[in-house]
């Protein structure tokens, strides 16, 4: 099978007032379709940065990042945006819903951007799937953290993305709620057979992924698969 995500000698450094700061050095990895991958590591080890590069939210300082065969490093921001809209879904620690839109409208957005005429129906079905059918017209600040994250998950699947990125999706939730959200994420993932790449500090969450990549100071020190 060909890899859906492939990093080749990926590196990221930024210049700060204290000089060059190397965040990622020479990352090489390849992720198969429908794989579930957890990126773990200490705080500041570069997890979010790597996720951002893989998802095309940022550009690498050197090296190539291939998403479904397209080289993100060679694209400009608009081209990456189009790729994101077509192939990528996101779930973030701080939910990142548009506060002025209702739950339904938040989920509709990516579908509408694809010019799908049935945005409303599809979004409503997805929200029903995540158990929020009674909260369609509520605004994010009227929802609990867990509910907001479920809306975010519905939105992530709304674009029929082939890859799902999640950065500490349970970071802002209590254990029980977090667990429910994770269940939902994995069951939807299985249902749509998407690729899932998530960053987490939560060992139990990492354990549910088939593959764990550990970062230490911008280096991959462990890449293990298990069944």
């Amino acid at each position, binding site marked *: 099978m060909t890899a859906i995500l492939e990093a080749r000698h990926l590196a990221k450094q930024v210049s700060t007032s204290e000089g060059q700061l190397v965040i990622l050095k020479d990352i090489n990895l390849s992720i198969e379709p429908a794989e579930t991958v957890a990126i773990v590591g200490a705080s500041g080890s570069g997890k*979010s940065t790597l996720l951002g590069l893989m998802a095309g939210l940022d550009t690498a300082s050197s090296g190539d990042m291939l998403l479904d*065969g397209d080289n993100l490093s060679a694209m400009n*921001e608009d081209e990456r945006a189009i790729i994101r809209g077509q192939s990528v879904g996101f779930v973030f620690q701080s939910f990142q819903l548009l506060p002025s839109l209702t739950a339904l*409208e938040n989920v509709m957005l990516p579908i509408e951007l694809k010019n799908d005429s049935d945005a409303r129906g599809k979004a409503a079905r997805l929200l029903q799937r995540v158990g929020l059918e009674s909260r369609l017209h509520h605004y994010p600040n009227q929802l609990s953290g867990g509910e907001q994250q479920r809306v975010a998950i519905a939105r992530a699947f709304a674009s029929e993305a082939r890859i799902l990125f999640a950065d500490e999706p349970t970071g802002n939730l209590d254990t029980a709620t977090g667990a429910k959200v994770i269940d939902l994420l994995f069951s939807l993932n299985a249902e749509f057979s998407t690729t899932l790449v998530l960053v987490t500090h939560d060992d139990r969450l990492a354990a549910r992924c088939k593959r764990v990549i550990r970062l230490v100071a911008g280096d991959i020190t462990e890449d293990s698969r298990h069944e």
Partner: protein
Amino acid sequence: MSDQGSKSVNGAGLQRLTLIRIALRLLWRDWRGGELKLLLFAMIMAVTSVSGIALFTDRLERALLQESANMLAADRVLSGRTQPPREWLQEAESRGLQTAEFVAFASMVFSDQGNMLVSAKAVSDAYPLRGELQVADRPFGPPYVSDQGGPEPGEVWVESRILPALGAEVGDSIYLGDAEFVVSRVLVQEPDRQQGGMMENAGPRLLMHLEDVPATNIIQPGSRLTYRYLFAGDQAALETFADWLQSQPENGFRLSDVRDESQEVAEALGRAESFLMLGSLFAVLLAGIAIALTARRYSERHFDYAAILKTIGCTAGQISAIYFVILAALLVLAVVLGSVLGWLVHEAILMALASVIPIQLPEASFLPYTIGAATALICLFAFALPPLLALKHISPLRVLRKDLDDSHLSTRLPYALGLAGALVLILWYSQDLLISAILVAAVAGVAVTLGLLSLLLLRSGSAVGMRAGSASMLAMSAVRRRRRQSVLQVLVFSLTIMSLLTLALLRTDLIRDWQAQLPENTPNHFMMNITESQVDGMEAFLAQRDIATNAFYPMMTAGLVSVNGEPPRNPWDDDDDEGQQNLTERSGQLNEMSPQDGQSADAQSEGEEGERERVINRQVTYTDSLPPDNQIVAGEWWSGADIAGQVSVEDDYASRLGVSLGDELVFRVGEDEVTVTVTSMRSVRWDNMQPNFFFIFSPGTLDYLGATYLSTLLLEGEEKLQLNELLRQFPTIVVLEVDALIEQIQTIIAQVSSAIELIAVLVLLSGALVLLACVNATLDERFRENAILRTLGAGRRLILNALLLEFAFIGLLAGLIATIGAELSLYYLQTQVFGQDFRLHYWVWFAGPLAGTIIIAALGVNATRRVVNTSPLAVLRQLTV
């Protein structure tokens, strides 16, 4: 991959609708957030104030022009001593202009019982083209508006006091020259009563039909007459006609409009126009600031939106499109609502002014709405578009790294654009480089002063009297922590307060000046041609009847022959202004029965220049006490004995002549030549309708040459009848009636004053909005900061006090800078634009900073009280979402 790219390009057309839908939904949903409301409110305010002021100004200006056109009975008047070619009237008519004509002359009227010198005016059917004739059915009876033009042939209308002098009544016959006329009505007022030369106004008015003139046989070769052709019509036609007249070879005639005819009215109108324009400039400026502030805050609120939209696949172009649609929708909304509100505001102003502006206002043109819309558009492009378009540069990485600093996005370009936009607006509006320059300089001055002050104050170490943990320390550290924001806030507050102060002070000064110009009880009749032997008798006559009078000024014509041995310079060389047409000069011409009418004495001798040396003829006087409304600006007024041989010169005229203190001037008075030394310079109020002189001699210098005397009277209503008695006892004197003119000017001034008042209030409202927007602009950060402070254990009181102090300090600073800025701009505005004297407004130096402190502190604390009263948890939760 490439097929994905092309697919999105093909989808672009389809997507446009989707984007518009998303944009409108965002706009609609955002309504719940305060930012959008404030932005829309600011834009509506901009359109409202600008279109409201423009509408009002537009209509008022036309009304005032119309009102003042009434003073001419026409829009343009052609006058001359001989009859202008009749083809000129036909030419004007062929250009779509209305025309009328009259001839005026002085003549005796007779009845069986008496006779009287009247100034007759024979008018054509169409007279008056502007304004109306007021008549009555009996002397001093209730006036009404004549439903026809002037009298029918064979009839005359006369002013009330003619009838008792002739022992006649309405319906009786009187004689003028060889013709007999029936007095059919009493003439109360004619619109152009005060226009023209003295010959037209030397006695009470008799109005007759132009056709009857030949029958009187009064007009003979050599008769002293004034011919006037009146024109009215639309501006463009009037102007092309004026150009055509210019091209005619024969040109002993003068075409004038009301501004040429009445300096006093022209000045009042000019100042009012400048003020209204300044008012709308400030309104635009303030609205621009409000839009900039609110748009910036709105866009900051949308940093996250842009980042999220990007992560789910929006391109930069699509994000721009979304926000462009939002702005366009806002613009449409603001223009529609603002225009309606602007119309309402101007109607409200008119209603409030109904008692002062009784005249029917002409309908406004469409231009004010265009101006309002264009202002919103320019403001939007200059102030709101840049920060919103900057959203497309937001990095999507923001969703992962909240700390990403995108503040750089909303700095330089928007400021530069905003500045350019403001400049364009100011210039476009005022079409006046001087006012624009003053305004821009004032703004720049405020910015520089602020820069210096903030360097001094904000950077200095902890101020005196601060304990750790005290409210003042918290406040100062807040000001310093947000230095950039604090400076911006002080800048906005100062500009706002400065605009308001400038306008308010200017308004007060203008109105005070006007009231001083023509106070209640301004004498409204000039008596001239009084001989020395009549003075005592007249004084007794007036005292007996309790009629207020002024000093009797001796008056004579003196010709300036040389200045320090050189011939005098032509004082009006550098402009085409023919010189001060004040009443004294005009009456002087009458006094000496000068054949030249309506032209200054200077012009007289210029005409003969070349053949003869230049002599500058002026009406002069001598007196030992400085006349009221005159002020010595250099040298000293004479006092004591042995003061002969001195002259005091009007300041501005002296500089035109190139005369300075200590110069030796030689005057020709009659056959004699007198040499005098300039010992003082005076400033004179030319617009006060009182005797004023360019040259005043010290007593003893000219006395032996003899003179006639000039004085003024105040006669109101039926008191005017006393004139008959006065003229009977002193038949040789000439009385010039300026009561109608003074009344007209007072009316115009009252209208203009109220207008100014209201504009000031309107601008005040925009100012309040800006202050509110500015306070709100920093609310988020305050919320967060204070929530943190409170979770750290700071008490509500402490935080509230700190907030109070912080705003008070910012307000104090802003008030101080605003006062400096206002005084500076007032100095230039008053001396350069409004032709006023500038005086420091001492009380403002206390009131300005004090008001700044109190208003900003009150506004600030009121707006941020929520900050303190919301639970810290709620704040922190809300802000992290």
